[in-house]
């Protein structure tokens, strides 16, 4: 039998106890209390069974930044296994369009064919949302279709700029097309691609100024490229994010007062804005046992913004702070940072990752049903 979830004798855990369980301790040379313990049966008499209502009431998201290329937000009240699943899906399982095959007709530039092909593959592209999300599909089989393959071309020849002065030393001025940029790539819509990828929605590089190759007069590059959908687990060129990462919310607990010159030194142990200096009030100074007795008007260190801390542990290296500060991280507070490469918006990507996880579970559910039958 399962252990009973409620015991009469058990006291509900105190606030301090909950905080202790929820903190990963960061000590001078070790990290302790790293494992989640919120499982049924872990603490006698406590109910940790999953319920969606309980999850919903404990879950919270706060946005810090939401730009196209960078979104930062906090997920609070979720386990690392789930936050990590979202992160992993962001990096490896959301499909994007990238150059997969390069057909080189001529390349007399100094950059080798295979290196050039590799460089082209890594260029991020953008295009009409509807077309990318709903029209395009994964390529199956050999034949290219309008719904699975996008064709691009790159035809550039470097020539001498006759208008330039003969003494010109800057290749960009002395020659035409001395630098080949991503903007030189042209897109030719095939079939129904016309209706999804025209005008504003054309398939173009996210950043037109990516340098592909450098050339000198009479050198030429003539090639065409085929793009396919793919996922990051296959090749990182298909990853929709430059980085998607999270860190746990740092906690700084000043357990004994840090006053005067020490306070300034303490603040210098942290990045700017983490520790602030406040004057010790008369009331505090008057309070016996507070540690502030007779220090009215002096400066004391207070924690202002622990989120900005990098958890460098510098403050633990100094003798004068020993036993006065406890560093840690909140186990269930994930500060996500998602940097999109441009094909998707960063916030859209996270939603897509959640959708993907749900989709995977749904598929597995069907598979399990099939297996049982």
């Amino acid at each position, binding site marked *: 039998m399962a252990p009973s979830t409620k015991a009469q004798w058990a006291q509900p855990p105190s606030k301090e106890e909950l905080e202790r369980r929820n903190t990963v301790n960061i000590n001078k040379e070790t990290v302790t209390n790293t494992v989640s313990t919120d499982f049924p049966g872990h603490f006698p008499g406590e109910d940790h069974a999953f319920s969606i209502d309980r999850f919903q009431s404990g879950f919270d998201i706060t946005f810090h930044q939401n730009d196209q290329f960078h979104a930062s937000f906090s997920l609070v009240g979720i386990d690392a296994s789930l936050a990590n699943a979202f992160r992993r899906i962001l990096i490896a399982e959301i499909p994007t369009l990238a150059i997969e095959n390069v057909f080189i007709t001529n390349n007399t530039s100094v950059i080798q064919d295979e290196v050039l092909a590799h460089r082209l593959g890594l260029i991020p592209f953008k295009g009409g949302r509807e077309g990318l999300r709903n029209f395009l599909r994964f390529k199956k089989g050999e034949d290219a279709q309008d719904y699975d393959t996008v064709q691009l071309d790159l035809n550039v020849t470097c020539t001498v700029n006759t208008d330039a002065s003969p003494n010109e030393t800057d290749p960009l001025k002395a020659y035409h097309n001395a630098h080949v940029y991503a903007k030189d790539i042209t897109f030719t819509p095939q079939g129904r691609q016309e209706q999804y990828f025209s005008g504003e929605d054309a398939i173009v590089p996210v950043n037109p100024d990516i340098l592909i190759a450098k050339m000198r007069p009479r050198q030429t590059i003539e090639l065409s490229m085929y793009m396919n959908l793919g996922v990051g687990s296959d090749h990182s060129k298909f990853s929709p994010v430059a980085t998607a990462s999270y860190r746990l919310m740092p906690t700084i607990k000043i357990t004994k007062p840090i006053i005067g010159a020490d306070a300034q030194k303490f603040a210098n142990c942290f990045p700017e804005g983490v520790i602030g200096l406040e004057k010790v009030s008369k009331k505090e100074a008057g309070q016996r046992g507070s540690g502030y007795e007779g220090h009215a008007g002096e400066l004391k260190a207070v924690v202002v913004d622990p989120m900005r801390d990098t958890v460098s542990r510098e403050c633990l290296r100094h003798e004068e702070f020993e036993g006065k500060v406890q560093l840690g991280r909140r186990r269930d507070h994930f500060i996500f940072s998602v940097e999109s490469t441009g094909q998707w918006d960063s916030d859209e990507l*996270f939603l897509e990752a959640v959708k993907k*996880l749900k989709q995977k579970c749904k598929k*597995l559910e069907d598979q399990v049903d099939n297996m049982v039958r």
Partner: protein
Amino acid sequence: MPGRTKKDEPTAQDTNMEDAPPSAQPEAEEVDTEDQEEVQEEEEIEPQRVRILPGSTDTAASFEFVDEGHTVGNALRYIIMKNPDVEFCAYSIPHPSEPKMNLRIQTYDGLAVDALKKGLADLQDICDVVTDEFTTKKDQFNAEHGIVR
């Protein structure tokens, strides 16, 4: 596939090694060759990727997931461990070069398969909650900061 079993019967006495099916599992691939043309137009039928490993009982079972990894493995392990009927749950990837993930579930009460099903359902519920919360907070933030996209 009752039809297929009958057809095999006359030759069953003397099956060539190469003709014999590799396992007792029904060959899912062969069944849908007839309507493969239609299938390709529609959603493709997925091959069976989950199976119960031999030696499993009702309350203590190991499952093998093909083409799944730490992403689903760890999330599923966590959510199944949150089920009070479950005594033990763990996952492992036996070898990094095989795309397989094994999940072990032992229950106090009820079937291990049911715990797995509940886990998958709970994960989907969580995804809905996260999506809703994310969307509301995102819209709120965008409205406050005048972000239009």
